[in-house]
């Protein structure tokens, strides 16, 4: 399979004065067409920083992001025609109605498909006369997905899309991801909820303290840590606890 997204040696340092407060260093991984990649790590591990750097929302000091084989910084507008995003907890124009936001947004996309838009609105049970602020967190994620899928996005980059969702909505989201992947859409989503990954991820990229611990096929990831932990079939939650375990000093 071809890499839809390729992140090469991405680094970003946050400083306060001369002191380094946080750093993501040498981040590299690939997401292929039709693949659901779970980007996992604890709160504050660097997931959002990495995703923001991929999307050029923050400026990394080093590294390169290739999407559809093109350098993101050189073909930003072209690449974004085929890429969709959702950020959990974000609420654009919350006092505007869905249809008003969609009316403006669609003018930017060459491949906007009104039929697909109507299809996903119906499928996700979204009322386009509702204001964004009237939607639950789960419905907001569905709205962002609707927008992304209506312009035929081939890559979805989702930052904590399951945060704030109830278990039923999370289950639905996992099902949606699997269906989209089956249509060839590549999905990169960050989370710290391992059960989301159990349900739908094909591959895992694990980040700890701003560094990639592992990036591989989910089954290989589990087997790799099963050997290291000297156990059989650990769950992703067991692996996360193993990687992150620290003595509590009280």
């Amino acid at each position, binding site marked *: 399979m071809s890499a839809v997204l390729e992140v090469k040696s991405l680094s970003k340092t946050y400083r306060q004065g001369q002191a380094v407060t946080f750093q993501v260093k040498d981040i590299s991984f690939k997401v292929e067409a039709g693949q659901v990649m779970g980007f996992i790590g604890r709160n504050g591990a660097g997931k959002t920083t990495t995703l*923001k750097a991929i999307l*050029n*929302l923050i400026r990394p000091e080093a590294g390169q992001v290739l999407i559809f084989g093109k350098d993101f910084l050189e073909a*930003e507008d072209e690449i974004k025609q085929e890429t969709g995003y959702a950020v959990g907890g*974000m609420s*654009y124009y919350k006092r505007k109605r869905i249809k008003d936001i969609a009316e403006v947004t669609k003018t930017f996309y060459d491949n906007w498909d009104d039929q697909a838009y109507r299809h996903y609105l119906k499928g996700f049970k979204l009322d386009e006369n509702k204001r964004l602020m009237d939607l639950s967190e789960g419905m907001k994620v569905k709205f962002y997905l609707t927008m992304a899928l209506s312009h035929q996005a081939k890559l979805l980059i989702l930052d904590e899309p399951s945060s704030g969702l109830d278990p039923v909505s999370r289950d639905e989201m996992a099902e949606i991801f699997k269906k989209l992947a089956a249509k060839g859409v590549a999905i990169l989503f960050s989370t710290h909820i391992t059960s989301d990954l159990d349900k739908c991820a094909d591959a895992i990229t694990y980040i700890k303290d701003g560094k990639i611990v592992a990036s591989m096929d989910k089954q290989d990831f589990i087997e790799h840590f099963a050997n290291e932990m000297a156990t059989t079939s650990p769950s992703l939650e067991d692996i996360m606890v193993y990687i992150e375990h620290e003595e509590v000093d009280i």
Partner: protein
Amino acid sequence: MKKLLAKEIRLTANPLSIVFIAFALMTLFPGYPILMDGFFLGLGIFFTYQQARECDDVIYTVLLPVRKKDVVTSKYAFVIMIQMANFILCVLLTLLRMTVLKDAGVYLANVMMNANLMYLGFLLMVYACFNIFFLGGYFKTAYKQGVPFLAFSVATFIVITIGETLSKVPGGQILNATSGVHPVHAVVFAVGVLVYVVGTWASMIQSIKHFENIDL
């Protein structure tokens, strides 16, 4: 750019930014510092920026299929559009004062600045203050608005004070003429055009540079 400008109007703009264009009517006020129109216009646009921050407008716009620098140019284009709408109204009202109303008693006895070509030159300088100090300051962070607005306010009041004072200095009465174009008026107007064009352009270039390097 057209699409981004339409987006600014339909999703981002606070209605007050548009409504405050009507402050151009202050051009007709006698006994009042009519350059304050430029300040109120800036205040109206400031409301849009406050609203934009509240609704994550910058992030939404950056994620659209546009280049990051287009976000800055579209926001400058929106402000220039508002300013030019206000300016055209001010030009028309100034022409009214300089022709039909040139002998009106309230304007002949007006101790404050009269509407003439010099007024229009100073008005452009006030617009330039907004573009240089507010927009230029805002795009250093894309969220801090208080200090940039304060800087714009201080700069504007300095420009207004200079404008209002010039005609009070001995021999400066001609500057406050209610009709006719005097060479000094033309010079001040030309300076206003120059400050507006160069100031806005330089501010936009600087803002693009800042915006491409800041973390959102």
